[in-house]
């Protein structure tokens, strides 16, 4: 069993109207010093299978092409393995930096 978490955020240069609206609301209801708010999406994918290199590659492909749009968004992907055997250590925790970099042009 593994839990795959994919966080998708709009690239910094892309307008985020939802984040802007939340920023306004936070300021309005009394939170001081709100410099910026960005809103993103999180996908939690539970798998009954082991996450080997092939599955990890497939997950990255889907995160880059379906779950995010590389023209306007970046993604970060992490895999937590629970129950049964531990997969390769690279697949646990947050293997984040490389995956995010992979979609930045």
């Amino acid at each position, binding site marked *: 069993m593994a839990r795959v978490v994919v966080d998708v955020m709009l690239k910094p240069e892309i307008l985020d109207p939802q984040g802007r609206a939340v920023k306004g609301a936070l300021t309005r209801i009394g939170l001081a010093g709100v410099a910026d708010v960005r809103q993103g999406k999180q996908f939690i994918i539970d798998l009954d299978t082991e996450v080997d290199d092939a599955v990890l590659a497939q997950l990255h492909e889907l995160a880059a092409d*379906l779950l995010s749009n590389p023209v306007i968004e970046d993604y970060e992907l992490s895999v937590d393995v629970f129950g049964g055997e531990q997969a390769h250590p690279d697949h646990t925790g947050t293997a984040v930096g490389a995956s995010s970099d992979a979609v930045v042009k």
Partner: protein
Amino acid sequence: MSARIGVVTFPGTLDDRDASRAVALAGAQPVELWHGDHDLHSVDAVILPGGFSYGDYLRCGAISSQSPIMTEVVAAANNGLPVLGICNGFQVLCEAHLLPGALTVNEGLHFVCKDQRLRIESTSTAWTNAFDQGQEILIPMKNGEGNFVADEATLDRIEGEGQVVFRYVGGNPNGSRRDIAGLRNAAGNVVGLMPHPEHAVEELTGPSLAGLDIIASVITALADGQVPA
């Protein structure tokens, strides 16, 4: 034998009936296509109409771009089949990588619904050969996520290669980079635009009849054998 032009219906499509009506008024034969089929029914061209396919879930056009019919549309488009994406259809074409860039939320944050003036920037496409270069047309637009974005290198490339087909004039309604309202692929058989030519086909309801010229263009292209039938 009149040209057979397929109009795809996804769950949440709104303008398939209008697109089919435009096709018929222009003298071609509309053919209904269903998103769940792997079958283009031997049509000569395809229109991806406007709407909110799959409720705009995930991103506008993202889930539709992975639908069974789009597998066929992408393969056929890469072989020269004329494909026109209108509004949500344009978003689907971008998500399917048939056109570059992406459509995101309007800069003014409002849904914009009005008649919009456009300049025809490329007539060497299957869908705009009936126009004159630089001609201006007035057709309806209605979108909340019509803000065309791409990185500067991509924008320079598509400008340099003449892939901008429609440009907003008289003010940019949604913040689209370089006032881009519509694009073509390199070959010119695939065109996408945010405004709605299918709503400009009758004097009673539209601001012009420019939509008929869009359909007339593809009929001409097919008759001339500019594109594989």
